[in-house]
């Protein structure tokens, strides 16, 4: 059977070579791409290893060798280096100001460089610039650059262009919308920084210590001062508070008092008013009295008369009345009865008795020794009688002569005499008895005489009669009454009476007459009274007219006096009331004034305290400010320690290298703990795994890995189809041989084995060739990667595994295709296999029939053959479609890339350079630049870095303020239509709008202002939002200012010179006297030449172009091979028929034209499938290549379609003619 192998090779050499080539390509792509990825991966790790990318970086406030030594003790640590890094500006000879991050390095560090270029520095201060940065900015080794440090630019000699781990795969991948990180990296000898830094560090540290001490002392003082002031203030405040309390109490009291005063005042006012009223009344009364008196005086005679009459009448009446009374009185009757018993008693005696009795009564009352007043009258009378008898008896005893001679008086008589004398209270032992006796005798003589003189015994017997009450005084009165009666009776009657008998008689006679007389007199009296009444007078009034009048006058006078007195009193009272009122007012005034005074005092005290408080605050502020100044100074000292001096925000970093196998994260944490324990502030730290470098590398590697897998996968699918197709052609054409072999007794398996062997041989060659191609590809792609990352060199590493896999896959694809193809053919019985295969007679679709109804029989024949070989047709279509897909996607990629460049540098950036400043520029400066002859156009382009908020979602964003009529900035919407910047509102970038979910017409919030989204822009690079200047001004201070200029390239230098002069002026003016000028002029930072950026980008893109054209070439070659082979196969299969046609007289050209229908239909169907597939592949690929700040937009102009169609059509036509020409023979 093996004898068959060579014949098969001979017979199908073209097809088998095609298979080999296609397989080799697939294998080559796979091995090449995977190997280049592996090489890149290995090279990267080697590079990172060799150039010692640290395992961890710890940024601290200070670094020192002591610390390094301390940290080195940790067993897991292999090496620790310290370095400093900071951001600054670098100015090259082309006067470009570039952002750059400076790292320090020292020769003994593990930090090594790969030098792309190196020059001898000849002892100058050296700087190494990162390859990409130097390359992009046209800086070469040997150039001199100026690096900004402390607002001064120091010259450095660029002695090396280096590649370093930090800068591997630097891509603009800042996440915030619209920010291109445009940092460069540079290295300066650690000695240059660290010597000075260390000196400054020591100085700063000394200063810091000194300051710290000073601060401590000052703070102590300030604290004490503050404490004292505070205590004082506290006391004062306490005092004030007490006073305030007191004042409040006093005020309350005063208020109460005032209230009372007011009450009193009111009362006094009332009284005053009453008094005044009363006074008026009194004055009125006085007038009335005077008037009455006058009237009375006028009527005096008449009144006198009336008065006399009435007096007389009354007297008469009174007499009568008395008489009558007397008469009618039972007592009188009784008296008369009694008196009738003593008719001989003279009235005179009675009268005397009465008088005497009265006197006697008076006397005994006076002396009181006779009887007890309380005794009854009868007892008294009895006693009196007894006493009178006693007195008479005693008198008689003492006058009996016994005592004429005192010396002869017996003792008993003496005793008796003394008893008598004692009886009458006349005994006085100091006076001689004779004298006492004489006195007693005279007294008793008097008493005895009086008894006799007044018939006292008879009168005393009357006593019980005249006094029913039995009281002595009544007796006296009764005696007087009797006397009065008698007197009256006698007076009335006018008759002389001498004895009691006369009185009794008179009494009995006059009883009846009195009544009569009384009646007459009463009438008369009534008349007088009624007459008086007519004058308004009573009988009392006129009883004694003059007296009455006088009384009246006196009364009136008294009244007037009283009134006057009252008035006087009132007049007297008024001043006191007034005085009282005045007093009240005064008191009130006083209270208020006291209150005011107290208030004022309090307020003064408060003011004083406040003043003290202020003073205290001032003192405190001052103390604190002094302290704060010190603290600030200390802080500054710290800052200086932290940041070093020289470059802005210089950071200290420890670069740590751990031993293999160490748990880097955990060990880093340990180191951090040690540093923290040493009072070293950790600002941040990251391990290599967490580092941006690693992330960037991983991101890029992942993309490359994806492409390295995806591309071969696509190729292998295509190759599978192509190999299957080709192998089926080979096997189909070997049908007869298979039949013969089968007839000769060869098994199906042996036949399969035969073809598998053939394919294996082809595949082995394909693998060899593919591996070679792969290696070439690896070298090419690897070198491309090395420039892309950039890596100084690529360690090409053939991944045996991947090569084996590629070889296995290549062989497997061939074997599978062969087994499938041979399987079906070898199934046929040998007799059938050897005979001509039965022609396909399946039905042709009706629409095809309709379409070809009017076509020539030859065309119909051609189409029929095509349609009846569906599998072959389908496979051809798929192969050509794959070719179309590859060509179209590659072209689309080139176009998209060109579109991106066009978008960036022709549409969006229409200016030649952009100059950055640290602040916005004023119109004057802009005009000044615009006024330069060589400047065609210029405008401001301020940047505002901020946040945009919509519906609760926030995103960072950069907003550009632009001239509304800008021609220098192109803004396009998603339909690629240019948008004008609106006067109000904002143009939002598509991705940002998607991120916050906002649409056109919505309102977003920026820094508290609301802006309407006027349009959504489509940007390939960056993510800028646009606003008019006026709108943007609402956002406050700019983050960075810039100018965009349209100038001729030749004039760039002039512009730079101008800007440099301005810059230097600005910097020099910073220290000049004209501070306004210095502060108003923003600092010129750096310039970006868009054309240079374009050239740089184009350089990168050219490599993309090459890759795309390789793919197109591959696609064309594969397509051509396929189409030629299929066409030839078809022709061979129908050789007999075609020859028949030729024998029938058809010209070769006629047959060729008609036969082309098949190729053309394949081409049409391939395009229908291939173009959309190509579009999808291109979109997918572009999406993969896009980053957050550089988006490859799928740009599909009609040109790609036309070019693809023409290219494919061309090779279809060419292959057709090649096939036909072979048939011509």
């Amino acid at each position, binding site marked *: *059977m093996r*004898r*068959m192998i*060579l*014949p*098969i090779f*001979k*017979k199908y050499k073209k097809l088998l070579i095609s298979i080999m080539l296609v397989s080799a390509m697939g294998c080559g792509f796979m091995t090449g791409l995977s190997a280049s990825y592996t090489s890149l991966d290995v090279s990267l790790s080697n590079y990172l290893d060799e150039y010692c990318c640290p395992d961890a970086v710890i940024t601290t406030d200070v670094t020192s060798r002591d610390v390094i030594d301390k940290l080195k003790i940790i067993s897991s640590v292999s090496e620790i280096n310290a370095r400093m890094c900071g951001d600054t500006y670098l100015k090259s000879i082309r006067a470009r100001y570039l952002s750059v991050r400076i790292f320090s390095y020292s020769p003994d560090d593990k930090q090594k460089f790969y030098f792309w270029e190196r020059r001898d520095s000849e002892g100058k201060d050296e700087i190494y610039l990162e390859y990409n940065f130097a390359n992009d900015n046209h800086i070469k080794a040997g150039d001199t650059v100026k690096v900004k440090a402390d607002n001064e630019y120091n010259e450095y000699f660029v002695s090396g262009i280096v590649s370093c781990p930090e800068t591997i795969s630097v891509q603009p991948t800042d996440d915030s919308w619209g920010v291109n990180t445009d940092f460069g990296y540079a290295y300066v000898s650690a000695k240059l920084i660290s010597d000075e830094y260390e000196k400054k560090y020591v100085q700063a540290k000394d200063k810091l210590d000194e300051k710290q001490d000073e601060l401590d002392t000052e703070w102590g003082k300030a604290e004490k001062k503050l404490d004292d002031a505070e205590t004082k203030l506290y006391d004062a405040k306490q005092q004030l508070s007490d006073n305030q309390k007191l004042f409040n109490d006093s005020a309350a009291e005063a208020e109460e008092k005032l209230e009372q005063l007011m009450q009193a005042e009111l009362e006094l006012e009332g009284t005053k008013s009453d008094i005044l009223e009363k006074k008026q009344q009194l004055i009125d009364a006085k007038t009335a009295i005077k008037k009455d008196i006058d009237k009375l005086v006028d009527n005096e005679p008449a009144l006198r008369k009336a008065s006399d009459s009435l007096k007389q009448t009354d007297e008469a009446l009174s007499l009568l009345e008395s008489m009558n009374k007397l008469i009618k009185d039972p007592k009188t009757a009784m008296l008369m009865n009694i008196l009738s018993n003593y008719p001989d008693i003279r009235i005179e005696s009675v009268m005397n008795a009465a008088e005497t009795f009265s006197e006697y009564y008076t006397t005994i009352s006076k002396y009181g020794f006779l009887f007890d007043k309380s005794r009854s009258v009868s007892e008294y009378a009895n006693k009196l009688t007894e006493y009178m008898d006693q007195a008479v008896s005693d008198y008689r005893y003492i006058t009996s002569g016994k005592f004429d001679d005192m010396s002869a008086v017996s003792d008993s008589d003496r005793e008796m005499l003394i008893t008598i004398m004692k009886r009458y209270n006349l005994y006085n032992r100091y006076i001689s008895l004779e004298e006492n006796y004489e006195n007693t005798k005279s007294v008793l003589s008097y008493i005895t005489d009086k008894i006799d003189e007044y018939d006292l015994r008879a009168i005393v017997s009357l006593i019980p009669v005249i006094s029913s009450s039995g009281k002595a005084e009544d007796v006296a009165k009764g005696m007087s009454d009797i006397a009065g009666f008698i007197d009256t009776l006698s007076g009335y009657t006018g008759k002389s009476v001498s004895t009691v008998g006369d009185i009794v008689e008179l009494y009995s006679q006059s009883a009846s007459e009195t009544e009569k007389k009384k009646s007459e007199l009463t009438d008369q009296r009534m008349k007088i009274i009624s007459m008086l009444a007519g004058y308004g007078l009573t009988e009392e009034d006129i009883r004694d007219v003059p007296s009455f009048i006088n009384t009246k006058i006196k009364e009136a006078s008294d009244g007037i006096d009283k009134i006057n007195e009252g008035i006087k009193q009132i007049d007297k009272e008024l001043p006191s009331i007034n005085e009282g009122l005045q007093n009240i007012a005064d008191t009130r005034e006083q209270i208020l004034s006291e209150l005011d005074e107290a208030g004022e005092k309090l307020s003064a005290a408060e003011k004083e305290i406040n003043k003290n408080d202020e003073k205290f605050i001032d003192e405190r502020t001052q103390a604190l400010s002094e302290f704060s100044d010190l603290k600030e100074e200390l802080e500054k000292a710290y800052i200086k320690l932290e940041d070093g001096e020289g470059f802005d925000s210089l950071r200290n970093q420890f670069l740590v290298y751990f031993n293999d196998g160490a748990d880097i994260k955990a060990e880093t944490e340990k180191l951090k703990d040690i540093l923290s324990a040493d009072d070293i502030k950790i600002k941040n730290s990251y391990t290599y795994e967490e580092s941006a470098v690693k992330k960037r590398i991983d991101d890029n590697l992942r993309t490359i890995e994806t492409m390295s897998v995806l591309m071969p996968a696509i190729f292998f699918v295509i190759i599978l189809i192509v190999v299957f197709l080709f192998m089926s052609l080979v096997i189909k054409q070997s049908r*007869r*041989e298979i*039949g*013969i*072999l*089968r*007839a*000769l*007794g*060869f*098994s*199906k398996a042996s036949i399969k084995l035969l073809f598998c062997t053939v394919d294996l041989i082809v595949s082995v060659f394909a693998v060899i060739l593919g591996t070679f191609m792969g290696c070439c590809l690896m070298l090419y792609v690897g070198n491309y990667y090395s420039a892309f990352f950039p890596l100084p060199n690529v360690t090409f590493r053939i991944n045996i595994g991947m090569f084996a896999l590629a070889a296995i896959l290549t062989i497997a694809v061939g074997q599978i295709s062969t087994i499938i193809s041979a399987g079906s053919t070898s199934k046929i*019985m*040998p*007799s*059938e296999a*050897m005979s001509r295969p039965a022609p396909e007679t399946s039905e042709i679709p009706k629409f095809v029939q309709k379409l070809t109804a009017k076509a020539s029989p030859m065309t119909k024949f051609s189409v029929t053959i095509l349609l009846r070989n569906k599998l072959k047709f389908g496979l051809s279509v798929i192969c050509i479609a794959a070719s179309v897909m590859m060509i179209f996607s590659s072209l689309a990629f080139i176009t998209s890339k060109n579109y991106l460049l066009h978008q960036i540098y022709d549409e969006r950036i229409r200016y030649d350079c952009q100059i950055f400043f640290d602040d916005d520029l004023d119109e004057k400066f802009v005009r000044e630049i615009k006024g330069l002859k060589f400047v065609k156009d210029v405008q401001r382009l301020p940047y505002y870095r901020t946040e945009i908020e919509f519906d609760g979602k926030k995103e960072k964003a950069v907003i550009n303020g632009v001239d509304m009529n800008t021609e220098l900035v192109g803004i396009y919407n998603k339909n690629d239509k240019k948008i004008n910047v609106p006067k109000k509102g904002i143009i939002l970038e598509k991705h940002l709008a998607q991120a916050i979910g906002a649409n056109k017409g919505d309102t977003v919030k920026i820094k508290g202002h609301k802006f309407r989204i006027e349009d959504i822009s489509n940007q390939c690079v960056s993510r800028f939002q646009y606003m008019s200047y006026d709108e943007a001004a609402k956002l406050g201070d700019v983050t960075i200012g810039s100018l965009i200029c349209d100038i001729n390239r030749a004039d760039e230098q002039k512009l730079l010179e101008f800007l440099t002069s301005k810059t230097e002026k600005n910097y020099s003016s910073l220290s000049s006297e004209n501070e306004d000028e210095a502060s108003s002029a923003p600092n010129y930072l750096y310039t970006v030449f868009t054309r240079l950026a374009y050239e740089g980008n184009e350089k990168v893109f050219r490599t993309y172009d090459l890759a795309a054209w390789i793919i197109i070439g591959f696609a064309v070659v594969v397509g051509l091979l396929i189409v030629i082979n299929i066409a030839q196969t078809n022709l061979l299969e129908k050789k007999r028929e075609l020859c028949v046609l030729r024998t029938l007289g058809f010209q070769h050209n006629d047959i060729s034209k008609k036969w082309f229908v098949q190729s053309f239909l394949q081409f049409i169907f391939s395009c229908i499938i291939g173009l959309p597939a190509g579009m999808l592949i291109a979109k997918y690929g572009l999406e993969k290549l896009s980053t957050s700040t550089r988006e490859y937009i799928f740009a599909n102009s009609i040109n790609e379609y036309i070019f693809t169609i023409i290219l494919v059509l061309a090779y279809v036509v060419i292959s057709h003619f090649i096939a036909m020409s072979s048939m011509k023979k």
Partner: protein
Amino acid sequence: MEKNFEEKEKRVLLEAQHLWKSYGEGEAKIDALADVSLKIYEGELLTILGSSGSGKSTLLNSLGAMDKPDKGSIIVDNQDICKMNDRALTDYRKKNVGFVFQSFNLISELTAEENVALTARDAKIVKKVFEIVGLSGKTKSYPSQLSGGQQQRVSIARALAKDPKLLLCDEPTGALDYETGKQILAELEKLVRQHGRTVVIVTHTQEIGKMSDRIIKMRNGMIKSVTVNDQPVSAASIEW
């Protein structure tokens, strides 16, 4: 070898029973074989005659296990080859049957020797069969360098190289000129008469039947007659 052939003369090598084979479907259905039964004896030269489309080639293919009848059985060594699987059939073909085709069916990319060697167990046999067919001097020639007769001889040599029990020849002279055809027939005759092989020749040339031991005539897929030729003539003597 001659003696052996004689001894085996009466022994049935193959027996086909009620073979049916049709092509196409429906109205277009053609019975290529319709209930065909026959026996082939060892060492006989059997000629199957019939016009084009009579089913003779189909019968031959079926007997050579190059095609499978729809129905019926072909018994060889007490085994029905119609019931054999592909592997057994291939084995049957390889061990028992040699084919000579009208169009030779040589592999043009192989030399005559290589073509023969495809089926030969060793080089000696190749040499021998080339001697048998009288083409020893042309072993290195490619088919395209040989005449039709020579190609047919190579074809016969290839068939003989595996020492088949049965040599099936489908129009062996069909593609050859008269003289060459006669030579090929002589070769076949020689194989039967001298080497004791069993040869079945399918042809539409009546005269060839004269050289065979039996003649089967077919028409429309059926055997119309089987004639035993007691006195077969030599191939050289027949004319057509």
